[in-house]
């Protein structure tokens, strides 16, 4: 039997408990519902919750500790010399045992010890599985039985069920906090380990990035220099290009939509522009690498300029295209938030529309626009797939948009995709970069939201 079967059995038990609980409450008052404290279905729900929740909690605990307990027992049963192996080697042996027990491919020759350990492992797992089934089912039946017994006319079943629901609602809403804590902790811990190997100052101020570390001590070609300035510069360059494309186009199209476009044109053009926001970034990346980058390269070649086929320009322009709808919808919001009275005042003084826009609306909406642009910048900094596919891998410190540069996100991906030791400075560097990325985008967001909120208050 499988764990999913157990869950289905549990669900079945819960519906049975619901039925029995409801029936018992009705029997107690011989069908006169008004004599009960709560509606009959609440008694049913109450019984079902008691039947299901303790058993499911037990199941979760069991599954999360089963692996380590079984592994510990197997390790104890291994011969002394195997137990004395360093942790990584021991892990390999354990993996082999697991694979052997499940009938997968094993990396080494199967000897007697391994076979007996695998049998032991399989036996233990079988026992654990059976025990889990027995424990969960008996707990469900027992708890359900007592809940069923406890039903009386005056039991406050509805309040208890509502309390349980309320607890679920509250814990759901705290998941956001746990996610944030999870992000901060997972990134921070590995970063601290990284900074124990590489000084912070070298990471933040170093001008050279070359993360090839040696896996073996005698390996050649390892440099292991972790100066992140070229990555920051590359990220900045690509973000700048993206903003040069996105801000004017996004802003002007928002203005045109708000003040000039007819209803028909707007109802047609707006959704089409918003399509740009729904396209997955991997598609933009493919577009940049396949169409835009060769286009810029050939254009450059025809003008006598050497444009790299992974130029910052191509990645930046495509990223700008991606951000256009983002900028335009944010600017649309803030432009519409400018009170009509200000427009009317300006028109009343004889200003043309464009003069009103340029001299009244934009200055009034400027804080909001700046906030929107900051949000767009944070979006661009964190964008990954476009730069992974269209920007380069080598860390050049350059301000020339025609050359290849690399970014923080590209390096995170290249450092973490593929096989490597999890403890090497190379892998840990990805977490340090992610920490920087997280902090910068968080700060930008905080500032942007603050500006936008301040601006909104001004006109409310």
């Amino acid at each position, binding site marked *: 039997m499988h764990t999913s079967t157990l869950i289905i059995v549990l669900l079945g038990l819960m519906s049975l408990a619901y039925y029995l609980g409801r029936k018992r409450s009705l029997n107690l008052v011989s069908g006169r519902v008004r004599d009960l404290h709560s509606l009959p279905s609440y008694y049913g729900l109450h019984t079902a919750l008691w039947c299901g929740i303790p058993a499911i909690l037990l199941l979760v605990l069991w599954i999360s500790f089963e692996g380590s307990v079984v592994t510990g027992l197997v390790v104890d049963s291994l011969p002394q010399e195997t137990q004395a192996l360093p942790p990584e080697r021991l892990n390999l042996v354990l993996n082999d045992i697991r694979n052997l027990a499940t009938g997968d491919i094993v990396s080494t020759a199967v000897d007697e010890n391994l076979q007996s350990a695998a049998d032991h492992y399989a036996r233990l797992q079988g026992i654990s599985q059976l025990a889990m089934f027995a424990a969960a089912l008996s707990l469900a039946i027992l708890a359900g039985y007592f809940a069923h017994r406890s039903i009386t006319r005056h039991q406050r079943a509805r309040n208890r069920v509502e309390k349980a629901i309320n607890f679920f609602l509250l814990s759901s809403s705290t998941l956001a906090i746990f*996610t944030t804590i999870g992000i901060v902790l997972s990134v921070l811990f590995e970063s601290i380990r990284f900074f124990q190997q590489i000084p912070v100052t070298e990471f933040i101020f170093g001008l050279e990035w070359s993360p090839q570390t040696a896996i073996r001590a005698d390996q050649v070609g390892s440099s292991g220099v972790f100066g992140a300035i070229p990555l920051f510069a590359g990220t900045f360059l690509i973000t700048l290009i993206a903003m040069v494309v996105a801000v004017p186009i996004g802003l002007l199209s928002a203005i045109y939509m708000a003040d000039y476009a007819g209803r028909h044109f707007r109802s047609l053009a707006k959704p089409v522009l918003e399509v740009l926001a729904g396209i997955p970034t991997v598609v933009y990346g493919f577009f940049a690498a396949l169409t835009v980058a060769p286009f810029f390269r050939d254009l450059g070649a025809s003008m006598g300029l050497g444009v790299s086929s992974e130029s910052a320009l191509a990645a930046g322009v495509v990223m700008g295209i991606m951000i256009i709808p983002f900028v335009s919808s944010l600017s649309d919001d803030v432009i519409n938030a400018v009170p009509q009275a200000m427009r009317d005042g300006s028109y009343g003084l004889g200003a043309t529309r464009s003069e009103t826009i340029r001299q009244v609306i934009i200055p009034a909406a400027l804080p909001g626009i700046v906030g929107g642009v900051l949000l767009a910048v944070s979006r661009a900094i964190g964008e990954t797939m476009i730069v992974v596919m269209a920007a380069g891998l080598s860390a050049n410190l350059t301000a020339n948009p025609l050359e290849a540069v690399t970014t923080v996100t590209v390096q995170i991906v290249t450092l973490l995709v593929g096989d490597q030791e999890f403890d090497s400075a190379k892998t840990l560097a990805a977490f340090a970069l992610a920490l920087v990325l997280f902090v910068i985008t968080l700060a930008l967001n905080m500032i942007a939201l603050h500006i936008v909120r301040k601006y909104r208050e001004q006109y409310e």
Partner: protein
Amino acid sequence: MVRVEKGLARRYRQERNFKRLGLGAILLGLLFVSFLFISIIANGYTAFQQTFVKLDVYYDPEMIAPVGETDPEILSAGNYGGLVKATMRELFPSVTNRRDKKKLYGLISTGASYQLRERVMQDPSVIGQRESIWVPADDDVDMLIKGHIDLNLPESDRRIKDDQLSWIQGLQEDDRVEKRFNKTFFTAGDSREPELSGIKGAASGSFFTLLICLSISFPVGVAAAVYLEEFAPKNRWTDLIEVNINNLAAVPSIVFGLLGLAVFINFFGLPRSVPMVGGLVLALMTLPTIIIASRAALKSVPPSIREAALGVGASPMQTITHHVLPLALPGMLTGTIIGMAQALGETAPLLMIGMVAFIVDIPGGAMDPSAVLPVQIYLWADSPERAFVERTSAAIMVLLAFLISMNLLAVWLRKKFERRW
């Protein structure tokens, strides 16, 4: 007055220019959209067809199994590769040189031998007989037939050599080459051979990932929104939750991938590249979107509904579950669909949790290793073969079709159930 009139012409000109500028910006945006779509479709539509070659195969009992053999084990062990080669030699008896023979065999996909094996396994009575069968051509031949290979290049720069070209022309004159609907693309998993690769593996991986993502993020998101909107007391804890949700909505997706790597894979020890972990990560990522949309939907339900329910004696929880939630549900579903569309297109966090592995098998559940559609696109985009370019574009078209239909569904839901109070 005179001064005003003097400036008028200039001011009107400026007005017109400004208007043109705005229109230009929009048109530029529209141009980008159409350029993107045209470039993808122009690159990709040919992938829905695949070149097939007709071979007259003699199912040689010596190469497969004696006539009348039905044991599947013996049948599957037959030398089907040799069978294809023998058939090709028979078609072009003039080819004798070893190197030329190799080039000749290269015209047919390696998938042809699997196809023959399947044919024999299905019907062992064909052994010893001769029949015409259409088998997929090699991807280079496919590219040539579709006109993607520049014949003006010198021979050494071409994937198709001159003698191969003449053989293909020979085949074409015999009506042995045909473009057909590329069924493989929709029924196969990934492969190193473009002509044998398909998106089914990635699509089912995406399906399982989204299923996990939806079954977590929808209930939790709705519950969180209900709590924050209806029950939460106004205090610092609630403020903290709200600030957190707003910030999570703006955290780069790749950071969620690192979270998944550190928590689900390294801490909880879940396997890499399975839809389970992908779904969990994407659920955390889409949660803010769903919470924000659900709260907006709850806000749009007028307070009079709540007051009426409370007035006739419903408990606050009954008010929510019986009256407010059903009215807010369409809005919540719209937000959820948009969140799911976002999750379907997401790539970066899945790279972090190892969903970039090369996986041929079609996953059968949430714990089987698999790719997802966007990652498949990323992998194919990196492949050097020309034939993968059109397959990448075709996979993008499939992905975009899914996304567009999801968004249309959301729009339809909003239109259908939108209520003005």
